[in-house]
């Protein structure tokens, strides 16, 4: 029985932390909020050179051949650093489904390019309804000769404005069973008829509205099978959920550690404020939540790596817990820092806003608690 990180994973974690502390300082994070692209192509190339982007792809596709659990270690450190850019969209939302369901030709076309840092991708799934359910997929794809023609609007698509390709989740058949008739297309972002607009977000991350107007996509760009895209999506959503939890856990731990340091250093009423029970109890509660997040997140990442039957339950448990934990950590992080915690200058608000955005990504606590109830047959 081994519920700890392995030696190699510890090395990966340490080197990732050192790398990001140097290459992704908070000034870069702040600069990327205003930056048009929202990420640093130089940093992206360095990540590619380290093997980060292809970490979980097999070596035959230009990857390192590591597991999803190893990737979770990297994602945790990235979340701690608030790494700007399309890491999760390219690797988890696009690369992983191509690896799982793509044809050999598609895998050869996309995966090595993702691994080398030459291809940015994202997933266009959610629509203005804001739904994560199959009934939320209404963007239509109609057959026309060798192509399909896509029409509709996708919303909250991360980094679509810099993506080379989009995985577009469409409805190709509309029956009473909404799970049937969903098809995923690999869409060249330069295709005629695609319009992308960046939405103004609280975190400064680049979420986009993508409007598709008679966008023609060749039949061979279907990922998996026609009308049978939902099982692929279900898996993507579970993996995305766990990836997000890893990101959140990293950030939450930064918040906890930084706040503990402050409580020890901040002198008020003749001593460090950390000596007050109120502060101590808050920090103790934060510790319960952050340690808990670490436990459940790594369990879920392991379950994904092992393709364990409890994968979906683990993912939902992790997301429900982490959604609350990260948020609470930042609420108390601001509070314990007092006035300075509320300022723009202090880094706390960067994590605070990230926590709120992550809370609703891929389903919030209520959504996942209901899923847990269903999976437990309550």
């Amino acid at each position, binding site marked *: 029985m081994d519920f700890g990180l392995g030696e190699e994973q510890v090395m990966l974690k340490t080197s990732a932390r050192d790398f990001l502390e140097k290459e992704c300082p908070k000034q870069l994070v702040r600069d990327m909020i205003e930056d048009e692209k929202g990420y640093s192509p130089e940093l992206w190339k360095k990540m590619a050179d380290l093997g980060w982007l292809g970490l979980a792809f097999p070596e035959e596709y230009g990857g390192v051949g590591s597991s999803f659990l190893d990737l979770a270690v990297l994602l945790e450190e990235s979340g701690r650093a608030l790494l700007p850019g399309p890491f999760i969209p390219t690797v988890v939302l696009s690369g992983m489904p191509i690896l799982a369901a793509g044809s050999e030709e598609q895998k050869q076309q996309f995966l090595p390019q993702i691994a080398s840092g030459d291809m940015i991708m994202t997933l266009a799934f959610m629509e203005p309804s804001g739904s994560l359910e199959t009934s939320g997929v209404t963007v239509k794809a109609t057959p026309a000769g060798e192509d399909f023609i896509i029409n509709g609007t996708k919303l909250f698509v991360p980094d679509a404005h810099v993506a080379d390709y989009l995985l577009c989740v469409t409805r190709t058949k509309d029956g009473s069973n909404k799970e049937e008739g969903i098809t995923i297309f690999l869409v060249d972002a330069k295709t005629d008829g695609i319009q992308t607009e960046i*939405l103004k977000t609280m975190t400064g991350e680049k979420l986009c509205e993508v409007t598709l107007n008679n966008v023609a996509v060749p039949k061979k760009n279907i990922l998996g099978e026609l009308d049978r895209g939902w099982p692929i999506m279900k898996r993507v959503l579970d993996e995305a959920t766990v990836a997000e939890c890893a990101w959140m856990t990293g950030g939450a731990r930064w918040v906890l550690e930084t706040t503990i340091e402050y409580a020890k250093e901040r002198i008020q009423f003749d001593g460090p404020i950390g000596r*007050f029970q109120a502060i101590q109890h808050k920090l103790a509660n934060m510790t319960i939540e952050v340690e808990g997040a670490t436990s459940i997140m790594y369990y879920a990442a392991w379950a994904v790596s092992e393709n364990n039957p409890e994968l979906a339950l683990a993912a939902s448990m992790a997301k429900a817990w982490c959604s609350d934990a990260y948020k609470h950590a930042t609420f108390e992080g601001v509070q314990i820092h*007092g006035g300075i915690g509320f300022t723009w200058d202090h880094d706390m608000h960067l994590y605070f806003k990230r926590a709120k955005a992550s809370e609703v990504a891929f389903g919030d606590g209520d959504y996942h608690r209901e899923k847990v109830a269903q999976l437990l047959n309550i």
Partner: protein
Amino acid sequence: MTGHSEFNEIFLDDVRIPKSLMVGEKNKGWYIAMGTMEFERSGIDRAIGRENTVKDLIKMAQETKRNGHPLSKDPVTRQKLAQFYIDASVLKYTGLRSLTGQLRGERPGPETLIGNLFGYELNQRLQDFAMHLQGPYSRLMRGAKYAIHHGGWQYGFLRSRGNTIETGTSEIKRNIIAQRGLGLPRDPR
């Protein structure tokens, strides 16, 4: 963190003030400042404000559909909305008690400290709940296309984090309630 500048630093460099402008007695200023803060903390202004916020949230829940149903029909949401309305009512009537006391010329009592503390923490919970109702749309800021109610709630949410710090932190206020309101002994420092 809202991106706005509300709080400032004031630097005093040999500023001369005529003695006639001294408030109260020399060296007794702390007690006067604390006295004014008691009135500031009486929170009677919050009494009506929060009720309106809850009504706005109820409306938002009624207007927001999730999976084909208005959120206001979701049992979990209904419970939370109902409790918020109860909380806002408790705040209102506590505020009116405070107001009555002030009109009668009485010094603010412990019920005023409760009103202020409870009201601020209620506001934080309400603003966070507004984000919760908006779901994925909660990420959109003021001025964003698709922002709900022009992103006004987003500003309110961010601003609300200062509520438990300004006019004294919630932790200090709880100590004051315990020590001054309830007469409990001070913690050994």
